[in-house]
């Protein structure tokens, strides 16, 4: 994508103005407007013409946004539930699907009419995703799928899912996988919320009981599923990375500072107060250094010399975040014993919380930071091996048919 040409800015802004003349966000609902945006090639400007893009550099997407914002108080951003489809589903469809599929799915993904989910992880395949065991067996023009996926966000809202399953257990694990797009309304698909220790379900489990998928819905060739999945995952990284530069003391740490400054006077002895203040200070330092490290990472990337700054962030952030919320609960002291929100099991919402309630929620929620998106143990392997060049652990699952690899 880096070698895509840039369009003359005025011309691009002109195209946006044309879109706005046809449909104005202030007077058009999100789905209808975004359909129009797609038709004008302004959905993903780096996609080819006719597929929601103009075949120009992805950096210029910002100009589109800027021009819309200039002329409209309402901006129809990506609907939150649709981000997986827009960020990861679309590029995968674009790269691997048939032309008819692209024409069908891309506008529906971008408009937010169709929510997409990603079904890779399985209960038995956490860090070792490629070791997954959901099976698809060929039956005429269809594949019949049985198995289970887990950690699937928005599955309960999704029309379509990106699915990777094992089609050949007799070859080493990466070689026996195939990639499908699955109509989530197919018979035999069931979705259950997966409640977390906070009592909320941000994710789902998805079960497949003799689910039929037409062979036409396989993306890539049989046995190439891992390669296709990599395309999806690469776009996950792009989607997650590049968080905006926060200001000093901003972000989560400001919540801890707020709690600290609002502490009950006299609850802590003077000595305990000194020690708690030092813990808050350490956490402030950690957060500040995380912020600076992310700035350094961006600077290094810009200058074309990306160093290890980026890779260490995920690992550092998990610990720092967990620590910060532990301290927050300790600052609350007696009040830390209450969990005001209660634990009624429910789908995750985005309701507001008081800073006290937030602290307790985050105290629990942050435990997953060192697990989700790569456990800290895996991250340390990656840092040790890819950044520092240390040799790998001996592997017992390489070059062995998947079915012969021991698993739990």
């Amino acid at each position, binding site marked *: 994508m880096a070698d895509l040409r840039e369009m003359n800015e005025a011309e691009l802004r002109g195209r946006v103005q044309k879109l706005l003349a046809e449909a104005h966000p202030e007077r058009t609902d999100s789905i209808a407007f975004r359909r129009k945006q797609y038709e004008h090639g302004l959905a993903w400007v780096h996609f080819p013409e006719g597929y929601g893009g103009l075949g120009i550099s992805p950096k210029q997407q910002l100009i589109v946004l800027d021009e819309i914002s200039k002329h409209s108080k309402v901006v129809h951003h990506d609907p939150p539930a649709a981000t997986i489809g827009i960020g990861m589903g679309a590029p995968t469809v674009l790269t691997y699907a048939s032309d008819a599929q692209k024409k069908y799915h891309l506008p529906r993904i971008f408009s937010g009419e169709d929510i997409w989910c990603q079904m890779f992880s399985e209960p038995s395949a956490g860090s070792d995703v490629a070791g997954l065991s959901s099976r698809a067996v060929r039956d005429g023009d269809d594949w019949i799928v049985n198995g289970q996926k887990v950690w699937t966000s928005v599955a309960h809202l999704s029309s379509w899912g990106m699915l990777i399953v094992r089609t050949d257990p007799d070859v080493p694990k990466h070689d026996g996988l195939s990639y499908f797009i699955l109509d989530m309304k197919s018979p035999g698909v069931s979705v259950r919320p997966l409640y977390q220790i906070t009592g909320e379900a941000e994710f789902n489990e998805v079960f497949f009981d003799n689910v039929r998928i037409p062979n036409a819905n396989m993306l890539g060739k049989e046995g190439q599923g891992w390669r296709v999945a990599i395309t999806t995952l690469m776009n996950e990284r792009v989607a997650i990375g590049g968080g905006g530069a926060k200001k000093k003391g901003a972000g989560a740490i400001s919540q801890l500072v707020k709690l600290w400054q609002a502490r009950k006077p006299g609850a802590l002895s003077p000595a305990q107060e000194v020690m708690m203040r030092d813990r808050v200070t350490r956490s402030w330092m950690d957060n500040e250094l995380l912020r600076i490290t992310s700035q350094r990472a961006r600077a290094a990337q810009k200058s074309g010399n990306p160093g290890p700054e980026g890779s260490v962030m995920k690992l550092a952030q998990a610990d720092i975040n967990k620590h910060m919320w532990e301290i927050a609960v300790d600052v609350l002291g007696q009040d830390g*014993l*209450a969990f005001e929100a209660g634990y009624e099991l429910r789908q995750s919402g985005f309701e507001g919380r008081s800073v006290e309630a937030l602290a307790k929620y985050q105290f629990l929620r942050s435990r997953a930071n060192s*697990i989700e998106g790569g456990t800290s143990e895996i991250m340390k392997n990656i840092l040790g091996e890819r950044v520092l060049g240390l040799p790998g652990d001996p592997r017992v699952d390489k070059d062995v048919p998947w079915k012969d690899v021991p698993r739990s």
Partner: protein
Amino acid sequence: MPADFVFTDEHDELRKTVRAFLQRRSDEKAVRASMSSERGYDAEVWKQLAEELGLVGLIIPEEHGGAGFGAIELLIAMEEMGRALLCAPFLGTSVFAANALLTCADGVTQKELLPKIASGACIASVAYAEPNGRWDLAGITLRAKGTGSSVTTLEGEKTLVLDGHAAHVLLVVARTDAGLELLRVDAGAAGLSRTSIPALDLTRKLAHVSFKNTPATRISSGDQTASFERVLALVCAALAAEQVGGAQRVLDMAVEYAKSRLQFGRPIGSYQGIKHKCAEMLVSVEMAKSAAYNALFGAAANEPDFVESAALAKAFCSEAYFRAAAENIQIHGGMGFTWEAAPHLYFKRAKASELLFGDAAHHREALANHVGL
């Protein structure tokens, strides 16, 4: 005589009995049922604990209908209850209230309440902490009105009362003209209101209590500051033992999981990343055991430095349990973060019991004062 840390055959027998009972009646399913119940514990189990096992009156002397056991038996019971995550008013009633009565109350009250407690019929809770956030005795500011008379009235608040919602009797720690005293308020008393606190740890119920011109009976005579310090110390030591039981259990769970969970064709426990974590947990659990055992063997032997040992135990075990419970979640990976798996139940208990009766920093400061550092 320094403690020798030898468990007798009788001790081993007690442990076996308690563990077997709890395996039957406080398995994960039972814990989850109690957690989500209003009362917070299974009344039937409490009855069995009282009548069949004699645990409810464990430290109550035989003359008052109890088992007449001491601190070592208490250690064993708490350790096993912590291990099983038992939901029951044991800490509040059988340890805190019973010991407060034994140490501070007059003979008449002892004679009336202790047998009821031992029988399981009476839940008694000590109303100690106040909303000022303090855990030290000097933080008690609730003041009984009137002087001299044995009946007085209370106006104010207590909080974080263990099983306060279910208690038949509240033993209120308050200031009188004599100093720090224990006052009795019965469940139906006028102007008494109790609110359950939605708790971080669902396995131990807490209540907020308020008094509005509520009649209360003075049941201690004279200032109880010194006695009550020892009562608190025993509660902390017992809680430390419970923490040790929980810490050992999460270590066991983590190790079991690490043996059976395979990734990349190997049990995750064969990777040093997990193995060394487990080894570090083991070290910390063993040290925590030393701390809790030292405190309760010390209590049993009436060691003069018992209050100091209890502070050490609460300080160390609080952190050890929390760390172990957190690592257990980590070792369980995604599964460890789900509601349906057990690790979070221990994690929340660990955090709550860390904060209860003062966190590690609080007790380290107390310890440093005792040792003279």
